[in-house]
C-alpha cells in the first residue's frame, strides 16, 4: 500500500490509514453516487471508486486540510476519466468545444416549454434517459448539484472552472432536461 516516492516515507502506514478513515471514508457514499452517474452503472462505479480511494490513500499527504469531499471528488473524477479512456474510449467527450454551447444556454431556453405539471409527471426511466443523454460536462455538474448536493464553489474547484461556468452548465443541463421531457411527453 505504501507508495514508492519520497514524500510517502514521512507518514507511517498507521497515520495514513487514520487520515484515510477521517478524510475519505465519510464521503464514500457520495463518491459512489457520483461515479455511478459518470460511468453509468454500479459495477463500473465500484471499480472506479475503489481505484480512486487507493489513490487517495497513497496520496493522502496531498490533502491539505480543506474540503475533504471536494478533494475526494477531484480524485474520483480523474480516475473516472482515466478509466473511461481505457475502457470506453468512445464515450469520452472533450469539454472545451462545449463551452460555446453552454454560453448560449439562455437563448435555447424557450424552444419547447412543457408545463411544470407535465415535468412533475416525468417517470424515473425518462429522467434517467434524459440525464444519460446530457453531454458529460453538463451531466457531471447536474449530478454534483442535484444528487451530491455540492455547492457551486465546490463544483468549480473540482472541475477547475469559474463559478459562472458552473452556473451556465447547470442552466444548460436543466434546459436540456426540460426540453427533452417536453418532447417525450407531448
Amino acid at each position: 500500500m505504501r507508495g514508492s516516492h519520497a514524500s510517502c516515507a514521512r507518514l507511517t502506514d498507521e497515520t495514513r490509514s487514520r487520515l484515510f478513515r477521517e478524510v475519505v471514508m465519510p464521503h464514500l457514499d457520495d463518491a459512489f453516487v457520483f461515479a455511478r452517474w459518470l460511468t453509468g452503472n454500479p459495477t463500473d462505479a465500484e471499480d472506479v471508486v475503489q481505484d480512486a480511494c487507493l489513490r487517495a490513500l497513497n496520496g493522502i499527504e496531498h490533502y491539505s486540510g480543506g474540503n475533504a469531499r471536494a478533494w475526494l471528488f477531484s480524485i474520483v473524477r480523474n480516475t473516472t476519466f482515466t478509466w473511461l479512456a481505457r475502457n470506453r474510449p468512445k464515450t469520452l467527450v472533450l469539454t472545451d468545444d462545449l463551452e460555446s454551447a453552454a454560453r448560449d444556454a439562455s437563448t435555447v431556453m424557450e424552444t419547447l416549454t412543457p408545463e411544470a405539471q407535465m415535468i412533475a409527471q416525468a417517470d424515473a426511466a425518462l429522467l434517467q434517459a434524459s440525464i444519460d443523454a446530457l453531454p458529460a460536462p453538463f451531466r457531471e455538474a447536474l449530478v454534483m448539484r442535484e444528487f451530491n448536493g455540492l455547492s457551486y464553489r465546490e463544483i468549480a474547484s473540482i472541475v477547475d472552472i469559474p463559478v459562472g461556468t458552473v452556473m451556465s452548465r447547470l442552466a444548460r443541463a436543466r434546459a436540456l432536461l426540460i426540453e427533452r421531457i417536453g418532447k417525450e411527453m407531448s
Partner: protein
Amino acid sequence: MNDRPLDPHLTLQAALDGELDAASQAAFEHQLAGDPALAATYERHLALRRALQTRMPRTSAPPALRARLQAATGAAIATPARAQRRDFMKMAAALAIGIGLGGSATYLILQRRAPGVDEALIANHRRALLAGTPVDVASNDRHNVRPWFDTRIAISPPTPDLATQGFPLLGARIDVVNSAPAPVLVYRVGAHVVSVTALPGDVTSRQADDDAGFHVLPWRHAAFTFLMVTDAERQELTRFADAFKAALANDAAAPPAP
C-alpha cells in the same frame, strides 16, 4: 458572483440552488413577481428539481467495497487512534481556554468538565436558544442546507425531510465541538427545537442524558454520529429520533444520496 448583473436565467439557477445572498434573493423574487415568463420557467425548474429528488433511485456505496477499504486500512486500530487524537485536542482546547482565562484553578475545573461531548452540545444548544434565532441559515429546504454547509466547512451530513412527520427543518448552524467546526441541523419539535449535531466517525456520548431538562440522544449512522439535543420532553425527542432514523435508514435502503 454579485460583481455584475447576471442573466436572469443564471440568477434563476442560483436562486434554485440556494446560492444567492439574502438581498439578491429578495431582488430575484421581486423580479419573479413582475415577470410571468420568468416565473413559469422557475416553476418548471422547481418541478424538475422535485422530480429528480423524488423519482431517481438513490444509491450508496456497496457494503463489500466499504468492507474492502476498511480492511485495507486496518479498521481494527481505528478506535484507539481516534480516541488518542480527541484526547489531545480536548487537552489542547482546555489548555488554550485555561491560558486565556489565566487562572490555573479555572483551568482545572474546565478540564474536569471536558470529558463528555454532551456538555458542549447542551451548551451549544442552550446558547442557540438564547440567541435571536437558533440557526445561522434559515431554510426549510434541505437542498439549501447541504450546500450551505459545504461552502463553509468540509462536512455536509445527510439531511432528512421530516416536515410530513411534523418536524419541519428550521435551518442549520455551525457549532464548535472538540475544537472543530461541526454541522448542526435544527428541526422544530412541537414548541421546542432539536439541534442535531453530526460528528464524523464514532463519538462516545453518555446515552440519553438528562442535564437540567436537556436530553441528548446519540445515533451512529453512515460515517456520522448524530447527536440530538433538545429541551423538549424525552418522549418527544424519542419520537423525533425515530422519524429521523427511519428517514435516513430508508434513504440507505431505497438507496440514498443527498
